[in-house]
């Protein structure tokens, strides 16, 4: 769960002052038991709309992967990773995609994707 202070801190890290009505509605819906389908215009803040409630659902005492985000392009996956990092939640994020050269010292997990 999240205290108002925690939420304020995250928004501050993201450089925004308050959630928009769309993001508040998404937060409310995603925290319920049902699945959510959110349709909102381009550039209206959908990434934050789903990342914030997901953060609220994460359990700090669980060490395994708790959430998987699938994105249509690799660069969009990288962008979502950046937004999560900016939120400074303390939860680790790992971005996985195909076609990157394997470096001996790297511990990145690579999932080959067809495109």
């Amino acid at each position, binding site marked *: 769960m999240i205290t108002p202070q925690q939420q304020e801190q995250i928004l501050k890290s993201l450089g925004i002052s308050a959630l928009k009505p769309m993001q508040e509605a998404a937060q409310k*819906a995603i925290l319920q038991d049902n699945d959510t389908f959110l349709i909102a215009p381009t550039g209206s803040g959908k990434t934050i709309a789903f990342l914030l409630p997901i953060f609220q659902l994460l359990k700090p005492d669980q060490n395994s992967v708790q959430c998987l985000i699938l994105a249509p392009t690799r660069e969009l996956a990288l962008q979502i990773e950046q937004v999560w990092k900016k939120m400074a939640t303390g939860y680790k994020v790992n971005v996985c995609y195909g076609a990157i050269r394997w470096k001996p010292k790297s511990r990145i997990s690579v999932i080959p994707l067809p495109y």
Partner: protein
Amino acid sequence: MAYIISGLRNLRKRVLVSATSGINIPDFIRLNTPTTLTFTPDEDVLTNLTVKVVYSEAKDKIETLFQLLCSLNSESALIFCNHRESAERTSALLNEMGIYSTFYHGGMEQDDRERALILFRNGSVTYLVTTDLAARGLDIPEMKHVIHYHLPPHAHEFVHRNGRTARMQTSGTAYVILHRDEPRPAYLDKSLETLELPTNNRLPKPPEFVTIYISGGKKNKLNKVDIVGFFSQKGQLEKGDLGLIEVKDFISFAAVKKAKADAFLNRIKDEKMKGKKYKIEVAR
């Protein structure tokens, strides 16, 4: 996607997001009585996006694209083509005409894809010629112009492409280059403004920044602060001379004002960063 989702046995919650509706959600998602939230833009308050039609007299639209780019006050633009080959060819043609551009599509090596976006994001390249690979989700601040060099086949792709501009509270313009004889797709409203291009424009100004490549990244224990410190102390760059810095696992990129780049590279040529020598040069 079906493969990944089928492997998730204990999936408890699914959240789907999109900017367009009217797509069928495939069965493999196993969406369970979802709460659907629809925030479509209000027709009256309408968005900050303006769509303009630019007619090309010639069937080959390159000359019209050239004139259009010359009329945009050297501001950054994203140019959409329908195929990878045409994105590359169009970029090459623009470069021949004196407009520096680069391309970004799904047929490129991953390193090159990411590099193209870095160069575009940090102002080392003003024009990015791309396919629908760049149509979804990418958030590039201060992008004011989206150009449809080729018409997207469907309305939803038109929406996603346009969505790269006029994000959040900003405004932007989408230009549709249309040949006179080209059938007008249904998603183009009849009432759209036609833009007449002035013909005596000057070439756009060259990019303000150049991207510097550094042969080390996070796994070499380098971070942004290290790079800023090294560039400003050893490299004697002032605050405004240094642009966006991106630190990847084994390499990094930093944008530096073009006018300062040569002297900077000369100064740091024999210097070490955190006790180690890195290859630092203009990114190709």
